């Protein structure tokens, strides 16, 4: 390579361009998306490189990254660019030609930025983070970084237990990022203006003291001889004992992304997405997203209408998705869907609502949204096959409700219904799983009656359950992959054996092995970092892609590494914890009261349900009082959309 001097913020596109003719789908590395923002390096003071640690086709549509990208770039003194995981074909060429990890916006070196922010929607991006750090010449060990390296910040849902990657990150942000990323940038700007006294450690100290971020290296972890954690304590004065999550209130004043990125390359979601509310209090006990994003904060019907209208104008997408954890639960969802369906009737714009609620109301919404189009498929998520297990997970749907809902769908012209389930839920028996087959058969029988047709279908889709931190199931034993696979195959046989309806039931299942590694990464502690680093060294990348994921490698390396601590893969996954045990994430505060979580875990075992606090009394989960937040829901009373059809 040339010996010419590196200039901070310069484009390295000329070097990259020489490699692109030799890689698959080169367009994913060139940027140039519609609505991308190009800013002058020297006119800005705090610069962020944001990463979604998966391939461009998965990462580009990510809402979190797009929101932060816009929020930062709206500020004249801040700059944000994006980078994604490069596939192994380009990674190899980049190493051979000494081309560093780059941003797709202006092809700047990731190592030139002040912050390198990585959004972890799942733990399966950890190895891709290591590839990016390595290609950016940033040391893996946060303690070995100098003032010239970016501050590496983890965010996203997985950051609620960042302990397995504690070694690799300088800081983690818990919760909604919009306000806190600006607060972090302000602290950094001030520190820079003072001439960066005390370098990176002083900046990290200021960020930690302000409560904005969790800085793992300012905490020491001690272990008992049996491998369990003894305590986690701050090792510097002024560092808080617990770090709390951030909650954005009043979503109407944060209508991002205002101008979503429209890629030239093909991506997994070719649509505009509008978040209609954040948080969920349905209380499904397996659901980490529902637990850590409380309370429910709705965007008003007026703002939703404006955002949808604006997005269609700015992007040219012909599909708009109304997103949230359970979209049918918006207090004015009927008005929103009817209003939008009226407005776009006769145009080529279609609307979609990820539907998970199992009730007749959901069918009305789906009918409304498909007024002109095809009624192809609907999706429901009963999650558990028997009424008993649905009580355990607090998914309050009776068998009767489910059958009625699905038959209504068939009677209304829907031909295909997908049913989502999990296997390996706490207290689950073979009988609970086999119940799924009987439910699916009943769905087809009743559906045939209601629709008068024989060609209706249902698909059962099922995967292994992975217990997650900050949920009532955080103490639960994960089911071994062998047992998960046995139950899944049993179910398959049971479905196929049914001569009467078996041919109308599709069966899709995910084998139990990847879930065990996800379990290790979800509930792991700092010792797991060594496992992640070692599998990466042996070539593991793109863990979310089954063609790249190797269970055997993970399994082998985990056993090798964890042996010296007298623990193993099972210790992290299939072992049930008790109330006294210090969990690796106990010093990270999602707002949920630990006592309440434990009580909910006990209720789960006893099959006792808990209502949604939006419509019944508060049951003191701990979030609202302690976090200074409150439920924000309608109805606003506005029945018609204020905008006219264009």
């Amino acid at each position, binding site marked *: 390579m040339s010996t010419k001097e590196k200039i901070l913020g310069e484009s390295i596109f000329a070097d990259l361009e020489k490699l692109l003719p030799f890689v698959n789908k*080169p*367009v994913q590395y*060139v*940027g140039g998306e519609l609505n*991308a923002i190009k800013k002058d390096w020297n006119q800005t003071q705090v610069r962020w490189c944001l990463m979604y640690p998966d391939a461009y086709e998965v990462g580009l549509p990510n809402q979190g990254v797009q929101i932060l990208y816009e929020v930062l770039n709206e500020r004249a003194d801040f700059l944000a660019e994006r980078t994604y995981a490069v596939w192994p074909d380009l990674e190899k060429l980049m190493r051979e030609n000494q081309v560093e990890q780059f941003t797709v916006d202006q092809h700047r070196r990731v190592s030139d930025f002040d912050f390198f922010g990585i959004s972890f929607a799942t733990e399966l991006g950890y190895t891709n983070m290591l590839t990016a750090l390595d290609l950016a010449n940033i040391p893996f060990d946060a303690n070995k970084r100098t003032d010239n390296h970016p501050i590496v910040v983890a965010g996203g849902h997985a950051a609620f237990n960042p302990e397995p990657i504690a070694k690799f990150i300088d800081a983690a942000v818990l919760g909604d990022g919009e306000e806190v990323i600006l607060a972090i940038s302000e602290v950094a700007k001030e520190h820079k203006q003072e001439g960066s006294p005390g370098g990176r450690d002083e900046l990290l100290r200021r960020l930690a003291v302000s409560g904005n971020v969790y800085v793992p290296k300012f905490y020491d972890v001690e272990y008992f001889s049996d491998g369990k954690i003894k305590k986690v304590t701050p090792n510097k004065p002024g560092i808080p004992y617990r770090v709390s999550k951030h909650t954005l209130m009043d979503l109407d004043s944060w209508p991002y992304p205002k101008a979503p990125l*429209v890629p*030239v390359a093909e991506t997994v979601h070719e649509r505009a997405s509008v978040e209609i509310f954040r948080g969920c209090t349905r209380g499904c006990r397996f659901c980490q997203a529902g637990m850590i994003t409380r309370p429910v904060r709705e965007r008003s019907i007026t703002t939703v209408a404006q955002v949808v209208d604006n997005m269609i104008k*700015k992007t*040219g997408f012909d599909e708009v998705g109304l997103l949230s954890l359970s979209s049918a639960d918006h207090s004015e969802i009927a008005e929103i869907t009817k209003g939008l369906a009226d407005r776009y009737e006769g145009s*080529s714009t279609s609307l979609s609502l990820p539907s998970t609620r199992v009730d007749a109301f959901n069918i009305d919404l789906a009918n409304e949204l498909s007024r002109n189009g095809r009624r192809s498929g609907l999706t429901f998520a009963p999650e558990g096959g028997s009424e008993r297990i649905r009580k355990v997970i607090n998914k309050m749907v009776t068998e009767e409700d489910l059958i009625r809902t699905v038959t209504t769908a068939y009677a209304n012209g829907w031909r295909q219904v997908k049913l989502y389930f999990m296997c390996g839920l706490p207290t689950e028996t073979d009988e609970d799983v086999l119940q799924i087959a009987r439910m699916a058969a009943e769905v087809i029988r009743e559906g045939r009656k209601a629709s008068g047709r024989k060609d209706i279908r249902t698909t059962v889709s099922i995967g292994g359950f992975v217990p997650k931190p900050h949920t009532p199931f955080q103490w639960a034993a994960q089911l071994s992959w062998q047992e998960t696979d046995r139950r899944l195959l049993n179910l398959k046989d049971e479905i196929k054996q049914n001569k009467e309806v078996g041919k109308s039931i599709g069966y899709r299942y995910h084998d139990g092995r990847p879930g065990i590694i996800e379990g290790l990464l979800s509930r792991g502690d700092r010792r797991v970092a060594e496992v992640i680093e070692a599998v990466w060294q042996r070539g593991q990348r793109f863990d979310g892609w089954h063609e790249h994921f190797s269970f055997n490698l993970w399994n082998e390396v985990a056993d090798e590494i964890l042996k010296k601590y007298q623990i193993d893969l099972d210790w992290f996954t299939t072992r049930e914890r008790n109330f006294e045990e210090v969990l690796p994430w106990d010093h990270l505060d999602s707002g949920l009261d630990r006592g309440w979580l434990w009580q909910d875990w006990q209720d789960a075992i006893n099959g006792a349900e808990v209502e949604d606090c939006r419509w019944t009394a508060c049951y003191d989960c701990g979030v609202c009082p302690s976090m200074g937040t409150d439920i924000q829901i309608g109805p606003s009373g506005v029945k018609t959309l204020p905008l006219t059809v264009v």
Partner: protein
Amino acid sequence: MPVVQKIRMRYEKLGRMKFSSHRDFQRALERAIRRSKIPIAYSAGFSPHPKISYANAAPTGCASLAEYIEIGLTEPVDPELVKNLINEALGDGLSIKDAVVARNKDFIDQLEASLWQIELTAVSESKVREAVKKLLETQEVVVERLTKQGIRKFDARGAILALRVNAAEPSRGYAIIEVVVRSGNPTVRPDDVLSALKSAGGLALTVPPMVTRRAQGKLTEDPFQLLDPFALDRE
């Protein structure tokens, strides 16, 4: 609604957008047309598609000054306005350069041949000239290309109508090839020409060349001077 007017357009694919595939361009154009709100016609049926025809797209990785499309509109619009509206809605690197109302029926016939410019670096001019000479002496050069159906073998020589080495800068190890290739099936692409230069002329490249389609059109006396494919529409 029926098509009442067809508009033909020439567009460029330049800079980093040369790495976009034909499918990428199709999606970008369809979205740009939706954003531009021009009265595009849609096909009938359950999933209506905008009426757009694409001709002879340049391969991924090649820049082009001469790509062609035709769109159907449900009401007459000034082609210049259509061009400007779509350009406002397309990103950098992709832009419509010329637009005419379709009058001549046999448009595909007008795209008889392509003029490609291939810029080679890190190779001596004399080597390039020698390889070109050897290739031109042959009657047939079978090349291989990996397609989705597997490896395909075909003659690349027959479609090469003219080939010359131009504007060389020998001191910098830099040479430009201009090649005129007849359109047809299978389409002989610039990388097929380079494969032919390698197998017939022993030209091995260490650095990937910069390839640009300069023009498409009907052949004239001078193969390097292709006739504007919109000539008949403009009459």
